């Protein structure tokens, strides 16, 4: 019996190992979870979109979330011509095909926006059952719902959009833009330009390291970028960071760049800790370290690893996401985790909430929203989520900016 079990288990492990090995990081990217609520969206198109400069000293200036200066205000909260409370509240539902933490966090922000632009918010999770997702859309339609925030499986995005059109109910994707089989947008959407964001992370470290270490020779600096290759957006984040490092310091890239794919360790603080610790101790010849991460948990783990190895004065860490770091700063933290690329969920969800209301109002057709964000050859706009790099000295300005952005418009 034991022998049979051993053989069976071995065979199963072989199969799972092979299937793991056969995975392609570029295939079927699931919605990603940026630690603590930093959403990452689909792979970016070519550059040129309005985006945030990595100027930590002026965070508010780095957030082009106010469209009034150059762009359309239709479908944005800045459109003061709309009286949201002159009608009955809409009934909107956020339909998700497999609820993750990030969906919950964005859902909270969408629910908050409901109070400002007058809709009742509810959630539905199909538990990865796309058939249930589609049939429930029909059920909601018969119950009189006015609009759908959606995050369907990418493979049935087109069918979801078609069904919504048949039902005559507007939809708006939240985390991942919806595209047809040719890769063209089939609704307006939002995204983070992951490659650009990675470049910003590296650029900030390069621009600011002398403030922490003085005039250090770049040849003495190693760069570890922590990510997980199961998701294309996270890989793109790494690619942007890596390429910027190579472009800026080509002479040191070959020797000093360390690819930190934590796939085998999972997505957790401890994974960041173990990976960073292993790389630091395996390369004692590297005197200084930049560590950047696509997820906040990895950054936090790297910070703990640097502390554990008493390397705090030789390490600079910049994470993507600051939901843990901000409370740490508020609690007096002043260690080597010095900066984070960040954006508030309120900022991320504002165009989504206001865009869907504009569609439900009939004030705009999907193709009319935010023409300044349309890429050549696309029918719909792909809004670029503004990001900013914050530090211990600037995060309060950013929080104030978010508060002003939200409350000032109430």
């Amino acid at each position, binding site marked *: 019996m034991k022998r049979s079990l051993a053989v069976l288990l071995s065979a199963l492990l072989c199969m799972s190992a092979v299937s793991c090995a056969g995975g392609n990081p570029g295939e079927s990217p699931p919605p990603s979870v940026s630690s603590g609520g930093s959403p990452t969206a689909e792979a970016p198109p070519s550059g040129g979109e309005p985006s945030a400069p990595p100027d930590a000293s002026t965070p508010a200036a780095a957030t082009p979330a106010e469209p009034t200066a150059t762009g359309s205000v239709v479908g944005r909260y800045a459109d003061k011509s709309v009286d949201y409370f002159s009608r009955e509240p809409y009934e909107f539902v956020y339909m998700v095909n497999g609820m993750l933490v990030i969906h919950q966090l964005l859902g909270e922000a969408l629910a908050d926006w409901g109070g400002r632009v007058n809709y009742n918010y509810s959630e539905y999770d199909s538990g990865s059952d796309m058939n249930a997702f589609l049939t429930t859309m029909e059920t909601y339609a018969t119950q009189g719902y006015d609009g759908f925030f959606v995050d369907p499986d990418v493979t049935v995005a087109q069918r979801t959009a078609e069904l919504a059109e048949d039902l005559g109910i507007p939809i708006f994707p939240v985390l991942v833009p919806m595209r047809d089989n040719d890769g063209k947008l089939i609704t307006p959407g939002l995204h983070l330009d992951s490659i650009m964001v990675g470049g910003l992370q590296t650029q900030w470290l390069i621009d600011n390291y002398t403030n922490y270490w003085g005039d250090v020779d770049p040849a003495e600096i190693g760069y570890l970028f922590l990510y997980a290759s199961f998701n294309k957006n996270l890989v793109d984040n790494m690619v942007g960071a890596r390429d910027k490092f190579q472009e800026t310091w080509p002479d040191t890239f070959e020797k000093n760049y360390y690819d930190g794919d934590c796939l085998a360790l999972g997505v957790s603080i401890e994974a960041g800790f173990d990976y960073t610790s*292993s790389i630091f101790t395996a390369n004692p010849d590297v005197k200084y370290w930049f560590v950047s991460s696509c997820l906040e948990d990895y950054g936090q783990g790297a910070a703990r690893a640097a502390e554990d190895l008493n390397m705090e004065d030789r390490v600079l860490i910049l994470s993507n996401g600051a939901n843990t770091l901000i409370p*740490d700063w508020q609690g007096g933290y002043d260690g080597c985790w010095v900066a984070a690329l960040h954006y508030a969920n309120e900022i991320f969800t504002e165009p989504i909430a206001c865009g869907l209301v504009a569609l439900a109002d009939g004030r705009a057709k999907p193709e009319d929203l935010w023409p300044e964000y349309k890429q050549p050859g696309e029918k719909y706009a792909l809004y670029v989520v503004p990001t900013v790099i914050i530090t211990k000295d600037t995060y309060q300005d950013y929080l104030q900016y978010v508060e002003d952005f939200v409350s000032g418009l109430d």
Partner: protein
Amino acid sequence: MENMSAAKRLLRSKLFSLAAVTAVVVLIFYLIRRSYLGVDNIRGILNSMSLSGTIGVGMACLLIGGGVDLAAGAEGCFGGVMVALLISKAGAPWPVALVAVILIGAAIGAFNAFLINVLNFMGFIATIGVSSMLQGIINIITKARNISISDRGFWSIGTVAVANLFTLPFMIMAALVVVYGIILSRTRFGRTVYMCGGNRRAARLSGLNPKKISTILYINCGALASLGGAILAARMHSGSPKAVLGSELDAITAAVLGGVSFMGGAGNMGGCFIGLLLLCSFNNGLISVKLASYWTIVAQGVLLIAALIADYFNVRARARELKAAGA
């Protein structure tokens, strides 16, 4: 003659084979990268053993006793989050918080035991259900965010080290291995665990109470998982709703590598410890030699399969010996 046969027994023992494999793995990585056996890296390896090891002690006892707790990771996660909430939000002194989360973990273990021993649910299914429930609760109470801990006294649990090598989390884990090793091998209770795990029916017919033993083991597993989660929270300065999840699989892998039978009734703490050391040394080495992560996963699978194959041949050889002795 007796000495020779003892040496022979040692050479043929599973523990020795495993230790030899571990030594070979360490040597290979050392030859590839000399810094592999540096103090800092050894400290890193030992550190990485602490969480899976703490959970693994409870898990190994449970496996030997014929059970399994697939909620151990979620229990650890819950422990880490609860200790963070108690310290940071409720203002509890950290020792009180630590004791409280161990008790909470024990209570969750008791709930598992209730489902399995009273309602007669299958262990796999019941603990998967509890795991799912706990993960949901964790996300609700944390709103899916990390809970920072600013109590430096609590941090010290994760940072204190002897000779800059043996961190407190590792020493706690090592102490647990020793204590539970003695309990399993030297006490009546320990023998009862093996009997219940090896043949539950025979144990019952011989007057033992397998359900009682199973209940104790589930409570113990829950308490240790929660302790492991709390220690990780001390190391990371926060309770994370994503931490520890999945560590139960590492613990099970280490236990199986170390010779604990998935069918119950066999294995020991020494084997688990070396199995865990092998696993963590291997993972650390793969990172330090910059092996692509997909190959890392393949390599981890190959390691486990190799251990199972070695175990298979070992069992077959023993069976032949027994057969020959019988003839």
